[in-house]
């Protein structure tokens, strides 16, 4: 099967499985590979965490492996540290091949359910495959309540180039702005992810900019808390973790560059 045949199979399965898909998303025309990929992504995004047959997973995994690896994949040894054991890297976190990447999740912990939404949670779940939502669903069912802010959970990363995905729910900033509790919860997200990475004896963890973007945390303050918390964790625990600050936007790159440069 080539990529297009795989997509045709996957889309067909997902549409059969969900007869109401047209009420949850716009089913665009699918003439090109790009349009088919977008439809497949959207259908996975709105999909409930129901079991899937082995055949679906085989085809999906084959498609995702090729789709993910068509891009430039970055490993730790491609990067230069900015400080001992700290790295700064701009790019798409789903192209990193490290032990664990951090996902900015929401309290449902099931991944973004909005078709083709342009957020990191959506991108990570899409490229990992439907297995990731199933694994998160198991965790949340076992916990029997929503995921609190400032904590962390770990799953495999499935079809992503990385091995594990650490999911954390950062604080959401509303019209009242940043408060001491929200700052504390953001620091707690970073700390919980690091502690979990060490518990699993990982070597490398890559953080996205937790709570910025959809959750509205101001970028500068968020970065200050991120760097301070990571440095405090290193001091307190003497961890050997290699820690990557992954930024996507130029604005965040500049903020992290100046925060990390001032401390040589």
């Amino acid at each position, binding site marked *: 099967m080539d990529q297009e045949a795989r997509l045709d199979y996957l889309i067909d399965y997902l549409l059969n499985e969900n007869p109401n898909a047209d009420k949850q998303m716009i089913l665009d025309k699918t003439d090109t590979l790009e349009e088919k990929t977008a439809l497949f992504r959207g259908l996975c995004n709105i999909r409930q965490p129901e079991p899937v047959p082995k055949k679906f997973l085989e085809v999906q995994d084959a498609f995702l492996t090729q789709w993910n690896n068509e891009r430039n994949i970055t490993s730790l040894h491609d990067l230069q540290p900015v400080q001992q054991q700290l790295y700064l890297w701009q790019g798409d976190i789903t192209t990193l091949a490290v032990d664990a990447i951090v996902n900015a999740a929401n309290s449902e912990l099931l991944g973004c359910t909005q078709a083709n939404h342009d957020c990191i949670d959506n991108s990570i779940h899409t490229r990992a495959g439907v297995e990731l939502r199933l694994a998160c669903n198991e965790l949340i069912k076992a916990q029997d309540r929503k995921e*609190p*802010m400032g904590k962390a959970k770990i799953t495999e990363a499935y079809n992503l180039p990385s091995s594990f995905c650490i999911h954390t729910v950062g604080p959401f900033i509303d019209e009242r702005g940043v408060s001491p509790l929200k700052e504390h919860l953001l620091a707690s997200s970073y700390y919980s992810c690091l502690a979990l990475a060490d518990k699993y004896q990982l070597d490398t963890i890559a953080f996205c900019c937790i709570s910025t973007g959809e959750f509205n945390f101001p970028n500068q303050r968020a970065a200050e808390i991120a760097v301070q918390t990571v440095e405090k964790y290193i001091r307190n625990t003497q961890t050997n973790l290699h820690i990557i600050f992954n930024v996507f936007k130029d604005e965040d790159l500049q903020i992290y560059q100046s925060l990390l440069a001032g401390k040589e």
Partner: protein
Amino acid sequence: MKKRANFLFIEKNDDVYTVSMTPELQDDIGTVGFVEFTVGDVLNADDAILNLEASKTVFEMASPVAGKVVERNEAAISEPGLLNSAKTEENWVVKLTEVDEDAFNQLEDA
């Protein structure tokens, strides 16, 4: 004597320390809709005492001090909105004993 830590008040009366909501915490989390107490009675500082889901936050409340839980505000399980009340007799969370007095005295005054 009343202290503040982990976004909570702790009020000492004889040997009983009552942990309750601060107005700042109430503002931050929004209307509380679900409350679940943790089960263990012996707590270290920062151990979870309560999980709550509110309109703006899903939050695990961390104990401000080490101690032994002698009473929980179980009325809040069926009526979570009590934790949004301005009155301490309604918005308290747990009562602790066996709290180290020095540790308590070192907390910020409320």
